[in-house]
């Protein structure tokens, strides 16, 4: 793939996001797109948004469960960038422009120290974590009908939409990261339950993976960064007007409404 094509793919994704339209999978045209190039496409659009005044506030980790990895035929997670404009707080009406949104219960980490790869392990993550908090990630895809392959989702900022954080935070030494139970409801009905270990055995392990992955790309996780560590259940479709709630037991809750049409 040449530079102009990478740029062209990035533009296509950017326009789809702005216009709330979908495009065919990029991998329909370049079936063997290298992962590095897919991240290059993602970064082009990250720089573009930065240039327009948005601010990167952290990262999201995707493909953290065995079934998701199996579905895309991969054996490691991927990541995307979180912007200030994506951030909602529990109780908000989510009015972010979305195309085909799905919700996922997650644990978010907020860092109190930089995490400099490539030798980061779970203990380093625990020491660098200021607190953890429940979060609902609203994922979205600019690719028609979510027909994504690994390179498609990576190029598309790991299928990010926006995210909603809990008002309750918990010190990491007070949280059962692996056995904390999550209950996701839509309009009062339980749609999914799960526990932290669904994220590659331990959400802190996913954060360690991210720190090391970023170091291979020449960047680091910074103090103050928000990290969405990965879904603890399957993703569930949401529609305009839906009420979404997540209970993460003693770790707190997240509640919000999807703006009605």
């Amino acid at each position: 793939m040449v530079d102009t094509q990478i740029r062209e793919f990035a533009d296509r994704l950017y326009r789809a996001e702005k216009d709330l339209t979908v495009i065919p999978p990029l991998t329909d045209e370049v079936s063997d797109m290298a992962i590095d190039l897919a991240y290059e496409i993602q970064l082009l659009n990250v720089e573009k948004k930065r240039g327009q005044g948005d601010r990167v506030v952290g990262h999201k980790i995707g493909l953290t469960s065995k079934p998701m990895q199996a579905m895309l035929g991969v054996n490691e997670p991927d990541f995307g960038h979180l912007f200030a404009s994506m951030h909602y707080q529990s109780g908000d009406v989510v009015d972010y422009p979305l195309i085909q949104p799905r919700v996922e219960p997650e644990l978010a980490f907020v860092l109190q120290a930089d995490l400099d790869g490539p030798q980061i392990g779970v203990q380093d993550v625990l020491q660098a974590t200021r607190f953890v908090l429940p979060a609902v990630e609203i994922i979205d895809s600019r690719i028609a009908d979510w027909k994504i392959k690994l390179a498609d989702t990576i190029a598309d900022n790991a299928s990010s939409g926006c995210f909603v954080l809990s008002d309750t935070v918990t010190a990491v030494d007070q949280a059962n990261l692996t056995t904390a139970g999550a209950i996701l409801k839509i309009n009062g009905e339980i749609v999914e339950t799960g526990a932290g270990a669904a994220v590659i055995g331990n959400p802190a392990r996913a954060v360690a993976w991210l720190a090391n992955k970023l170091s291979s790309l020449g960047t680091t996780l910074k103090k103050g960064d928000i990290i969405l560590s990965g879904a603890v259940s399957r993703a569930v479709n949401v529609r305009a007007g839906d009420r979404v709630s997540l209970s993460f037991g003693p770790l707190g809750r997240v509640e919000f409404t999807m703006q009605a049409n």
Partner: protein
Amino acid sequence: MGLRAIADEIYQHQMTARELDKITLRYDGLTVDDAYAIQQLTIQKYTNQGDRLIGWKMGLTSKAKQQSVGVDEAIFGHLLESMELTNPEISLKGLIHPRVEPEIAFVFKHRLEGTRITPRDVWLATECVMPAVEVIDSRYKNFSFTLVDVIADNASSAKFYVADQAFSPYQFQLDKLGVVMCRNGEVAQTGAGAAVLGHPVRSIIEQVHMLSRIGKAIEPGMVVLTGGITEAIYIYDQDTISVEFEGMGDIELSVHA
């Protein structure tokens, strides 16, 4: 209609661990009441041989499972003494295509019967709650069945194991309880207690209400398995299955031929 003959057939297949064609494919017009009658006739065959009824189990307690068989109600089955594993070991002998699921077991000190049971009736009657793993094994080909089939087959009951440690029913919020099930060290399923009808206590209420239709009750000393907190997973020879219940410790089961 020969409900007794159907019960004989199911009993034979349960005893010999041989697959069976769905009874609803071969007998027309079987109702849910017929299916529970078949279930009771089958259980009588065991108790006539000296086995003993020690409790009940609930099935189809999640929306997803109810949808998969096209119903909006849970089902129940009988638990016999011979089904309880006294050691954390599962022998595949006598099983067809077994699967395991994590559950919360309630153990009762008082009788519970009637059609207007509330959560506080359940708590007052409960001695303790315990982590448990149920081994389910449908006698039907490909684990595929309709509501009537699965009820007749004792709600796919096969074996169950209850942990050593009992807990006060007031110690945990059972709906919030997180559960992680691993196969050979790798996370296979996670869930929370609310997957069971919103709260496992609701499962006990349903159990009592359904029992009252056939003139039965939860008796003192009985154990009730409230329903799978996650999807069930298949087990194979040499597997190690470990299940951690948030704050309640874990159960480790080894599987062998």
